[in-house]
């Protein structure tokens, strides 16, 4: 497939760019942070996103969605990266929608997807139990009890946990922490007795939380996908997450780069624009080259998601590894090339750097994916 957007995808990208820059620019995130907003996102903006159809981009038409595909959703994520818009888009519309759509029973799809699409249902995916991504290191237990299960444990750094109506949680139904097999996924109502969600504040001013589960009783219908066989669903979810996080990181890289080049054309030192100095020009040109490489891996991996390609897992790791490297370079250079002003909270550049580092860590950082790439290639 040609590595270009089709007309509809281009239109979606342009409309996302127009909407976000007008209604949810970086200033919105700054305001949410300064007000210490309880929700951590702007409800009215989310409602508008829902009206634009974004919550249903990955949901089949049969369940009320647009069925527009990952390449389209990737464009929305990329534009969200440019504006750092805080919303449940990633947790609900990308991750939960993909999880339910790929592993849910018909009954689960009917019950959850239409509500997800109309914006009335928010979900969060809770896999981590520590600060680094390690999906098989699951200690949270799900013991069989009567017809259902009882869950005990703690999930960490759950994106959007404290605003979610329901959680999709990985827990161990057999085996030991570190085993790939024996993990199952459950859909838990946040209001279930024994579920305690504590918001945590990360550098990026976006939502994160710790989720403690104490004797949480679930029915058999809470199981999402195969019992003991959650590993393959988690692998798929990680691919979805990493490719869309990469799209977001690509948007951030481009935005920071463009703002930095613009600054180089405005700031004078020693009587000349700093952009006229070759030492700085070459650093900008190198970033340009690296961003071009990042663009290609993102569109290729988004297409692989839509095609459910055999190489999806490999391409997802290529994508996250390369884009993480590029965004680290560009945000660091963005601060450095802005000089003193780059260190101030007043300038937006710092917001991009902080969001980038959190997004890089989610679902595995650069080193994790470089190692995984080697393992998948059998060396």
């Amino acid at each position, binding site marked *: 497939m040609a590595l270009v957007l089709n007309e509809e995808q281009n239109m979606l990208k342009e409309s996302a760019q127009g909407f976000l820059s007008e209604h949810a620019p970086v200033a919105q995130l700054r305001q949410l942070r300064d007000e210490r907003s309880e929700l951590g996102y702007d409800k009215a903006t989310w409602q508008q996103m829902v009206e634009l159809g974004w919550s249903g981009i990955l949901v089949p038409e049969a369940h009320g969605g647009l069925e527009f595909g990952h390449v389209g959703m990737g464009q929305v994520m990329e534009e969200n990266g440019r504006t750092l818009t805080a919303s449940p888009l990633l947790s609900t519309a990308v991750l939960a929608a993909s999880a339910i759509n790929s592993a849910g029973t018909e009954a689960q799809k009917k019950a959850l997807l239409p509500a997800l699409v109309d914006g009335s249902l928010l979900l969060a995916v809770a896999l981590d139990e520590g600060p680094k991504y390690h999906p098989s290191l699951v200690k949270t237990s799900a013991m069989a009890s009567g017809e259902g299960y009882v869950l005990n444990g703690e999930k960490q750094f759950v994106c959007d946990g404290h605003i979610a109506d329901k959680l999709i949680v990985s827990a161990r139904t057999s085996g030991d922490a570190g085993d790939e097999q024996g993990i199952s996924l459950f859909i838990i109502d946040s209001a279930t007795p024994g579920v305690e969600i504590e918001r945590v504040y990360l550098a990026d001013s976006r939502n994160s939380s710790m989720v403690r589960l104490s004797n949480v009783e679930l029915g058999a219908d809470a199981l999402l996908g195969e019992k003991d066989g959650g590993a393959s669903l988690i692998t798929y979810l990680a691919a979805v997450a990493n490719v869309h996080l990469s799209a977001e990181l690509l948007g951030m890289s481009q935005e920071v780069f463009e703002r930095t080049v613009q600054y180089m054309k405005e700031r004078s030192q020693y009587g000349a624009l700093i952009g006229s100095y070759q030492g700085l*020009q070459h650093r900008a040109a190198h970033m340009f080259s690296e961003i071009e490489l990042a663009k290609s*891996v993102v569109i290729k991996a988004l297409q692989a998601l839509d095609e459910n390609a055999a190489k999806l897992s490999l391409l997802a790791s290529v994508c996250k590894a390369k884009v993480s490297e590029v965004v680290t370079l560009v945000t660091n250079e963005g601060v450095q090339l802005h000089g003193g002003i780059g260190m101030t909270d007043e300038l937006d550049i710092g917001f991009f750097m902080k969001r980038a580092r959190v997004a890089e860590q989610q679902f595995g950082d650069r080193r994790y994916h470089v190692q995984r790439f080697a393992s998948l*290639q059998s060396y």
Partner: protein
Amino acid sequence: MSDLDQFRAQTREWLDANCPASQRLPVMEFEDKCWGGTQWRFVSADQKNWLDVMAARGWTAPDWPAEYGGGGLNKEETKILREEMYRIDARPPLFSMGLSMIGPALLQYGSEELKRQHIPNIVKGKIWWCQGYSEPNFGSDLAGLQTRCEDKDDHFLVNGQKVWTSYAERADWMFCLVRTDPDAVKHAGISLVLFDMTTPGVSTSPIKLISGNSPFCETFLDNVRVEKDQLVGNINQGWELASYLLTHERAMIGNMGHTAASEKSLHQHAIDVAGGLENGQLGDTALRTEIAQWEIDILAFELTQERIDDETKAGTGTGATSSMLKYAGTELNKQRFELLTDIHGQAGLAWEGEAFDNGLLASQWLRTKGNSIEGGTSEIQLNIISKRILGLGQKG
């Protein structure tokens, strides 16, 4: 079956029947690539035969017009031919600066007479072309070149010195940048002329490189007579042509980062040399990481070539990306050979001896150092990106 499917089926059948088995093996040595020309000595009957049958169909230059001996294929057919050749690891039947550089320039800018004189011979691999661009004092600053070309009414007279002429001692003809107007602003007084290397006054002297090889020469031009009809384009239009040619050259050099399907991957080299895996992983974990990072980068690079190609076809390209590809591709190719020599340790640095392929890897490694110098240095590519794409101005 669509026309293209039919073309693919016919092409596949024809290649299967006509591409000799020996021409499907990886290129190991310089002579395995056929460069053509009057001085070329074919290493095998297969090599000559493969060139002849492909040239007869114009498939050495598949997308050039058939009226000048080219294949006359459209873009889709050309792509299919490349894919089908790639599928069976067929070697390109001919490598030459005629195909990659002066041919496209002649098709774009040359007179009808020049096209009829030169294009068919390029397609058939009959003439080895070399490039007369750089001069001892004008490398990166190419537009300052000083080789004089005087108008002597019925002919031109050329005097000066060129350097980094590829294989000048084997080349048949040179396409050469010369100064035709010494008073004009430097870019404005340059022209492109063609001449036979056996013309009196042309002499060459090889330059020995760090690789031990001498692929380049100095070329001395002493009262060389050039016919008037061998001017390409208009007088003083040379810089425009040179820029056009350099774009082609960059694409070609940048493409060296591309790993052919038949080539062994870096990680396979490491597995073979290190004597297998430990628990399914390379024992040298630091090397494993560096190889994986490089393989991720080269994949990103290949996808970028593909994407830029697709964008160009879709008419959405931003242009001016040849500098980016040249910069990224050559830097990656250098890294590849740094890793390869590392993997092979001191054996990778062997200079001679049959046991070490006569020092092939070491000379290849050293040759790659030139990738980021020739065709405009990496620093020049970064300058071009800064100024033309990013709009970062000159000082003052």
